[in-house]
């Protein structure tokens, strides 16, 4: 029978949850790296027991951890993230130019077919790559030449938080940065260009249609439709049918189109999920009701999913990397909250259960479907 392994990064350590294909009973291991912020954990699609974790601390900096046995044991890998050449400057909060400074790794994206190749999305926004299993990391500096001098941190820092490798053409990748926008490479990360046409940010930018500067919170795609991407922006949910050449809004009847994560059903490429949050001033669900919204039409028409989720007095947030799906039938959907709950649905979102509660604030959720 298949198994599911959920990799949970929190403000105070990592937790690994496992269950069989029924997804009813969960075993919890952790905290791993207790007391450290674990921004992200992800397994190699080519070797699922090879896990990579971004362990970080305001005191002691960045550590990359690696496991060969699905998270039972870990070894520290390389932690030197050095910008290529003289990194130059980007826009700072006061409008001046500010030197690029490495702070932490937000997201790790292993190659689909080589367990030793991993991309790392960093703050200050930059993309790094290892081809030796994390021992050494090299920056891919072409990204920062895509108008990097105009990028500016948002309140959460100038982070590269989303990395999507095209399922058939690995030389094409999509990344997203807060607050710079979405970018695409078609030549294996040598050159990049902004793909933000159609994004509108009238409350955040002096030019609502600017080529860069948009606060993209998350993008997602279904592997069978790699030209279709969905985006949760600071405000607005959008989609593109042209690999980012242009985007259009699909917020439709959402109670709020502000939010952080967005994800796609494993078997239905037009079924997508978001978690509406009241506003950028009030980072909690509208009306104190925690609701996942599902669209089965690729956006515009949304239904609130509430069964098993708290429908009163709930004031948690769900962060951008804290939602994932499994590939079982029916598709499982998972998300973690800043209140420390991890909710799971084994029926594509119809009903939900807290598979663990009272963890530290959840920063990231990834799910592996194992044989």
């Amino acid at each position, binding site marked *: 029978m298949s198994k599911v392994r959920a990799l949970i990064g929190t403000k105070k350590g990592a937790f690994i949850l496992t269950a069989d294909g029924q997804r009813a009973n969960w075993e919890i291991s952790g905290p791993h790296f207790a007391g*450290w912020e674990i921004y992200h954990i992800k397994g190699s699609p080519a070797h699922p027991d090879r896990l990579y974790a971004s362990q970080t*601390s305001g*005191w*002691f*900096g960045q*550590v990359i951890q690696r496991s060969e046995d699905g998270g039972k044991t870990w070894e520290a890998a390389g*932690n030197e993230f*050095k910008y290529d050449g003289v990194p130059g400057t980007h826009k700072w909060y006061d409008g001046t130019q500010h030197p690029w400074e490495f702070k932490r790794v937000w997201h790790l994206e292993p190659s689909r077919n080589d367990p030793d190749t991993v991309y790392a999305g960093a703050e200050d926004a930059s993309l790094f790559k290892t081809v030796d299993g994390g021992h050494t990391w090299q920056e891919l500096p072409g990204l920062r030449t895509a108008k990097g001098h105009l990028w500016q941190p948002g309140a959460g820092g100038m982070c590269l938080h989303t990395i999507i490798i095209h399922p058939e053409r690995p030389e094409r990748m999509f990344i997203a940065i807060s607050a710079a926008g979405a970018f695409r490479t078609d030549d294996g990360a040598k050159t990049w260009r902004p793909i933000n046409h159609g994004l509108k940010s009238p409350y955040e930018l002096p030019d609502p249609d600017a080529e860069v500067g948009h606060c993209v919170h998350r993008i997602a795609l279904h592997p069978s439709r790699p030209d279709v991407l969905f985006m949760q922006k600071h405000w607005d949910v959008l989609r593109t049918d042209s690999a980012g050449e242009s985007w259009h809004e699909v917020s439709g009847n959402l109670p709020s189109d502000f939010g952080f994560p967005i994800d796609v059903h494993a078997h239905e490429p037009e079924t997508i999920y978001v978690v509406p949050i009241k506003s950028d001033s009030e980072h909690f669900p509208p009306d104190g009701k925690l609701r996942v919204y599902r669209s089965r039409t690729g956006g515009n028409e949304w239904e609130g999913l509430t069964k098993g989720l708290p429908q009163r007095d709930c004031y948690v947030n769900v962060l951008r990397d804290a939602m994932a799906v499994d590939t079982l039938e029916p598709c499982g959907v998972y998300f973690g909250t800043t209140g420390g709950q991890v909710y799971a649905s084994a029926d594509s979102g119809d009903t939900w259960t807290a598979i663990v509660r009272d963890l530290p604030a959840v920063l990231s959720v990834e799910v592996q479907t194992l044989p």
Partner: protein
Amino acid sequence: MIRVVLPYHLRKLARVDDEVQLEPGAPTLGSVLDALEARYPVLRGAIRDHGTLRRRPFVRFYACKEDLSHEPPETKLPEEVVTGAEPFLIIGAMAGG
């Protein structure tokens, strides 16, 4: 022999239970840190920046009730530390909350 006391998180990272005993090339602040990182490479970057070797902002160095955090790497450590009578302390700075 110089005794070095690490903060909890760096002891866990280096997988040591107790203080560390080192024989640095010279009895200076920088040499002790060099020797520490040579024995425990996982600590490279956790105490000092990789490239500049500047102390990370929220790490402190104490010895014999003195704060050596702002001293240059060639600073000679107190005699009590050099003889092993007193430890050299690496501290994670206090943070409120």
